[in-house]
């Protein structure tokens, strides 16, 4: 499903003349299979967020290959990656990343609008997803009027609305309290088991890491070890 081969990345910092290069990922290779939940753990600066951003296409790799669903995404231009992203990837962010001027309904509907789906179909699908995440009654609320957990559910609903085969999550429970975190993790597992959605989750939280079928630890930009069946 996701294949990463010899992926290396580095950041340039400083101004012209005094630039320095910071290597972040060094020859990382890994594979995420269909239907798997893979969690990536590591200390701050280990390169886990960079890895997720590279897979998401938010930054382009310096070296190596990334292939998702058989498509070499590392060679796609920005426009083609955008089209690919909306078809194949869903995102859950630590700070939810909802548009504050839009209601829960409008935030969830947004990917369908961007895809050019008909309004009648959008209405039906958005209601279904909001029902699934238990927020149908809150559809007219703005993000500022929802709790952290509810906002993250909206964020998940938005990720699910286009039926993506893969969801990439960056610290999905980072802004949630313990009880809400548990609910969310259960929900992720439910989505994985019932809908077969593949999850690639970046976390530094051990509880989150445990829901993965596999956990990969990164240290200093390299894959340190893989732990199988941590929870499963």
């Amino acid at each position, binding site marked *: 499903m996701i294949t990463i081969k010899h992926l290396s990345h580095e950041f340039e910092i400083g101004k012209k003349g005094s630039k320095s290069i910071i290597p972040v990922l060094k020859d990382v290779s890994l594979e995420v299979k269909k239907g798997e939940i893979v969690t990536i753990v590591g200390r701050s600066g280990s390169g886990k967020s960079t890895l997720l951003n590279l897979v998401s296409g*938010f930054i382009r790799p310096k070296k190596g290959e990334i292939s998702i669903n058989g498509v070499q995404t590392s060679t796609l231009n920005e*426009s083609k990656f*955008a089209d690919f*992203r*909306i078809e194949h990837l869903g*995102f859950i*962010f630590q700070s939810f*990343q909802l548009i504050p001027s839009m209601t829960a309904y409008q935030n969830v509907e947004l*990917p369908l609008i961007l895809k050019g789906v008909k309004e009648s179909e959008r209405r039906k699908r958005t209601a279904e997803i909001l029902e699934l995440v238990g927020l149908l009654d809150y559809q007219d609320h703005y993000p500022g009027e929802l709790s952290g957990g509810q906002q993250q559910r909206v964020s998940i609903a938005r990720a699910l609305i286009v039926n993506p085969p893969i969801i990439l999550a960056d610290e999905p429970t980072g802004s949630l309290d313990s009880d809400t975190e548990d609910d969310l993790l259960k929900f992720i597992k439910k989505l994985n088991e019932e809908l077969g959605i593949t999850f690639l989750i970046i976390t530094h939280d051990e509880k989150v890491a445990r829901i993965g079928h596999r956990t990969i630890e990164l240290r200093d930009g390299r894959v340190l070890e893989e732990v199988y069946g941590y929870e499963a």
Partner: protein
Amino acid sequence: MKLKDQFRFVQQNMKKNKTRLFMTILATAMSVAFLIVLASVGFGLHKSIVKETLERRIVTEIEVPGKEIESGGFSVLTDKDITFFEKIEDVKAVTRRKNLQDYSFEVDTHQTYAQAVVANMPAEIAAGLELAAGRLPEKGNEILVGYHFVENLRPAAENGEEVYDEQGNIKEEFRFKEDLIGKKVTMNVLKLEEGKELTESLELTIVGIRKQPTKEWVYDPLVFVSEDVLKKVEAFTGTPRGMMKDSNNADTDPLSIPADQYDHVKIYANDMESVKAITTELEANNYPSYSVINELKDVNVMFTIVKAGLIFIGTIAILIASIGIYNTMTMAVTERAPDIGIMKAIGANPGTIKKIFLLESSYIGLIGAAIGTIVAYAISFIVNFGLPLIIKQAFGEEPPEGLMFSHIPLSLPVISFVICYFVTILSGLRPAQRATKVDVLQAMRREV
């Protein structure tokens, strides 16, 4: 993303900073109104002049004053030239007139002075001559008079001052009130002989009256006489066209004029479109010509330049307003960077984002243009209504009748919309491109 959704997005976004949006639209509307009102002055004056020109002349009429000759100067037109004119394609008629002098005409107890003219009646009829009463002359002593001939008839015995009113018109009670048709007229022809004035009276009969000219200001007191009358006049005076010899130098013969020469030749085209081809043909054969169409061509060229200049000045105003649009759009991109980042993260195509921002800037431009156009129409109406009153009050003078200070043809708002749309797209282009370059990670890191 569907266009309808893009519009919905734009409308939602525009609601976010209503004051800024209002000011930007206001600036655009003012600049568009300025452009339209400014150019409308050019259009108004152009229309007034064209109207004035067309009212005074017949558009299919071509005046030919003579023929250019190799040695320089002009030769007077003769039957040979007339034959040539009649053969030109799309020529409907060629009227030719020989002008005699002003003579005294007596009808019963009334008299008047009027110019006598010899005309080719079939050509005059073909050119559009119509009668108000009577028929065309058939015999040598029959004449046709102009519509206003009767208005100038005054009692011969009355004192001049009593006959005329304050406006210089003959008072009602002194006017000739009988039917002119069939009336005998005495045409008094004068000549000088040994310092004395001798008169020959020719007995003529009025058989027809020309129709009232369609233009109110045209005055037609002419008397159309036959070639026979001309011959009698020339035989009596011994001069061509009955010209008077110089009383101080009676021995000098006036310039001799051959019998087939014409003083006034006009060509009438079948339609307005043929005028250009006919004048080209005339020019190619050394006949300078004058027509209202040619005159209008020059007027149109001049006013096209003037109007283009005014539109250009107006466009500068729109360009200034576009700075406001550029600023508004740049601010909008900066403020909405987090939203743009989120949209890009979930799969918005950069092209779609660019389109949304271009749509927004063009939306501002078009709303501004629409408001500006309405305002411009209102100003134009006020100017046309109010300025003549102001001029009258301030300077005590009536502006020329029918003068249009401001005219907004449909083409002007269309031009303004196109210019405004083009300029707003241009001013929104860079901010829209900036929006596509928003870095997803940086944008999402900001506090929303």
